[in-house]
């Protein structure tokens, strides 16, 4: 066997066909193409700076960095599946972080960090749910276009955060607050575990529940969904509530990692979250998108930015490359030469 492998001529055609088959199957789907791109980016960065990119230290630091905006991208994904968008995610994240931070700094005495931390997280989640409900009512009950409803509500959430803090950072947390953003369990960073759990949960909700089916059905064809007697208003409200809850969770990770909360943290995350969702194959007009695609898109972005960082490329070049990647993937996904688009 090993002799035949070493002199692999007889196996080559069969193996080649199998490989080509697997590759063409992979390239046929958006997620497959994205997986190939993610692997290529990973290999390219590994080849460029092998001893640093492949180091345990780099892997760990990447695993700490991406979950916060990856969770925001999940929030964006669920709203995009309905053909909507949530431009208020960063506003919700910061507002809930400020509420949590205020509770932490005013109530936590020495030693009793955990109980206050639980209260702070509950309050942050409540803020996220309430903000999501507000968005949902605007979009579903009042019929505002999602892009405007969440643009306006995002300004309001950010505005409340600015007005209550005067624009300065809230800091001085008990040590337990560092747990969600900076600790590891069995060597795995806590934010990564949190993101993994949320990604699986969102994926299950989208594919294994009646709510998920209705949501995707509405995104694919709103009129057909209405004729199928789906309670669209209730479904849309739940979508934005889910998005708000995810945004508040991302806010908790950001707060813990920064060890403070501020009204203008993560302002660049908004476009990044949209970019990741679209890069992950989510159709911004609704109806199609898978969590696995979003995860692959997040990994691709993180490999790119860490790798580029290592070879000394500035943050601004990262922005350039992200934009270029987005357009490249869109061209690969939608443009077929010779076929006129209707």
């Amino acid at each position, binding site marked *: 066997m090993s002799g035949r492998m070493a002199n692999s001529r007889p196996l080559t055609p069969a193996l080649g066909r199998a490989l080509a088959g697997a590759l063409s199957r992979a390239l046929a789907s958006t997620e497959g193409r994205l997986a190939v791109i993610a692997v290529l980016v990973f290999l390219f960065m590994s080849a460029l700076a092998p001893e640093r990119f492949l180091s345990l230290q780099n892997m760990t630091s990447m695993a700490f960095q991406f979950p916060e905006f990856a969770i925001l991208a999940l929030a964006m994904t669920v709203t995009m599946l309905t053909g909507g968008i949530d431009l208020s995610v960063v506003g919700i994240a910061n507002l809930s972080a400020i509420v949590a931070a205020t509770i932490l700094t005013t109530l936590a005495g020495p030693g009793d960090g955990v109980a206050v931390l639980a209260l702070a997280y509950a309050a942050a989640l409540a803020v996220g749910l309430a903000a999501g409900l507000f968005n949902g009512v605007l979009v579903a009950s009042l*019929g505002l276009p999602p892009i405007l409803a969440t643009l306006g509500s995002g300004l309001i959430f950010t*505005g409340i955060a600015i*007005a209550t803090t005067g*624009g300065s950072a809230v800091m001085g947390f008990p040590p337990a607050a560092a747990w969600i953003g900076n600790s590891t369990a069995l060597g795995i960073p806590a934010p990564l575990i949190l993101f993994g759990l949320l990604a699986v949960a969102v994926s299950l909700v989208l594919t294994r529940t009646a709510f998920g089916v209705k949501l995707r059905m509405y995104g694919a064809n709103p009129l057909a969904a209405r004729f199928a007697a789906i309670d669209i208003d209730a479904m849309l409200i739940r979508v934005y509530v889910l998005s708000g809850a995810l945004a508040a969770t991302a806010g908790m990770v950001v707060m813990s990692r920064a060890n403070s909360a501020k009204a203008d943290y993560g302002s660049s995350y908004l*476009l990044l979250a949209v*970019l990741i969702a*679209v890069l992950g194959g989510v159709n911004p007009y609704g109806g199609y998108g898978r969590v696995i695609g979003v995860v692959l898109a997040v990994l691709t972005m993180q490999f790119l930015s860490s790798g580029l960082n290592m070879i000394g490329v500035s943050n601004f070049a990262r*922005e350039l490359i992200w*934009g270029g990647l987005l357009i490249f993937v869109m061209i690969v996904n*939608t443009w077929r030469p010779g076929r006129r688009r209707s």
Partner: protein
Amino acid sequence: MRIDWTRNETLVALVILGFCALAALSDPGFLSVATLTDLLRGGIVLGIFATGALVVLISGGIDVSFTAVAAFTMYVTAMLLNAAMPWMPWWGAIALGMAIGAALGSINAVLIAVMGLPTLIVTLGTLSIFRGFMLTFVGQKQITTLPPGMREFGRMMVIRGENADGSFYSLHAAFLATVAVIVVTWAILHRTMLGRQIFAIGGSVESARRIGIDVRGVQFFVYVYVGMLAGLAGIIHASMARVANPFDLVGLELSVIAAVVLGGARLSGGHGTLTGTVLGVALIVLVRNSLVVIGIPTTWQSVTIGALILLGTGLPAWQAKRAAARAA
């Protein structure tokens, strides 16, 4: 003249009047030439941006990259003129800026009109690309010594005067550029076949195609035109600020689109007026400059603008939804 209460323009005009009435009550000094010139000055760059955004919205698309086009243009133009062509007069600097803006706009145009990619995604991508390219390869430092042409333009005023209390007021010559942009855009939209075609493809791309409109050609024009206006706005911004800061402008794009939508343009395309756009810009500038006059602290500015957007777009949306429910 009959007043149509269901139009956004009416609503925004009423809010502006109410705001001014409140401001005048709490501070009689509000109703002065100085306030007016301040507001007009604040609307110069925003007005040009908004006019461009209106044309894109009418055509059924959306462009979020225009602020990056403007920042790129002002920075590159200032650098280019300083290095190679310091003799260039002010109108030369403006022409060069409009050309650079149009060139960047044509990149959007190729991706959208020729390749048929979705407008939001393309312009989101080019926003990062233009800004990233400028900051990586051109520079990140402010240019504090502008080329002579731009400096000369920065000093040009249409009106200059002194108030009774001895304070000075002035209106920058760039205000005329904004007026010219609005007039030219009005003429294109309402006095040319091209304008009708922009409305037509915004209403329904398929119908427009079937009556023989060159949809790609019209879309191409729209994105090049917006790029050109953004280039102009960039040069004006730098000349008025007397510095080319590459970190300026980007971040304004959603507020500009909000101003246009407040004025009644629809994101779904085919609808929008210049009157509404001007009113929307006026309201945003008013809130930014004078919120404190009616007793609201400036830290609440963003809450106020957000609430106005929700109110301005929510009322018509809610009315439409009720009308649809009655009809069904």
